[in-house]
């Protein structure tokens, strides 16, 4: 699968740190970034799937491209993510196949929730994606 690059999204990162338990990154989201394109014209907001895409990019860099998202649970968007902000995302291991995600900026916490992991290569047609864990 071809994950979209940060360049394609018009996003850059200024910090990336990881260890076996935690991965955190800080992104710069310029107003002209493609990730805001047409969401929404005249009052751009980072789409929910834009945030998930950034988490997916982090997963690839942290755990390798073979690891993907199997499920999302209780992902709350509490504060809009707007252009020109520096957005921090923290991913913390909760279990072998579950992460806690928190996204925040200087304005406060924007989103949080649980991400489930699986091995992309383990997915068989028709079988639940989360069957094999990492």
């Amino acid at each position, binding site marked *: 699968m071809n994950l979209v690059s940060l360049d394609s999204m018009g996003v850059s990162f200024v910090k990336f740190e990881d260890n076996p338990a935690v991965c955190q990154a800080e992104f710069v989201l310029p107003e002209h970034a493609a990730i805001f394109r047409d969401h929404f014209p005249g009052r751009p907001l980072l789409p929910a799937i834009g945030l998930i895409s950034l988490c997916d990019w982090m997963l690839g860099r942290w755990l390798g491209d073979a690891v993907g998202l199997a*499920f999302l649970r209780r992902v709350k968007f509490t504060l809009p993510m707007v252009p020109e902000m520096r957005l921090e995302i923290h991913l913390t291991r909760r279990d072998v196949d579950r992460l806690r995600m928190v996204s925040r900026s200087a304005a406060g916490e924007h989103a949080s929730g649980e991400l489930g992991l699986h091995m992309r290569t383990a997915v068989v047609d028709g079988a639940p994606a989360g069957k094999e864990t990492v």
Partner: protein
Amino acid sequence: MNWPDPGVLPHGPAFRLVQSVEAIAGDRITCACRIPDLFPLVAGAKMPTYLALEGLAQSAGLLAAHLACQDAKTAGRAVKSTPGYVARIRQATFIRSEMDGTLPWSADAQLEGRSGHMILCRGEVLQGTTLILQAGLALYI
């Protein structure tokens, strides 16, 4: 049939995944979706399944707009269009990790409840006859 036009969604063309409404019955809607030109989150033919959540959310938004329009007409009030956004992904399970971003898919959303400005819905995405994902969402309208 007086079905909502996807053009009422607040998204611009590069982010409007719903192409047409296929059916509305009661609290349920089925929409035809595909990745538009210039969509910023796809890099090739294969795309991560979670991107299809947006199509499901847009379908649910159209359903909410349709029901609000019906309510307004019944009450004799003026119809007011209000944009909405995803407030919560209550749960989403990706049956497949990726799907073909060049092909259309269908999003089926069902209203589960309303509380103030919050709309609760659940639904699923199919590409052809293959189930891609199931999810429960909350939209703020």
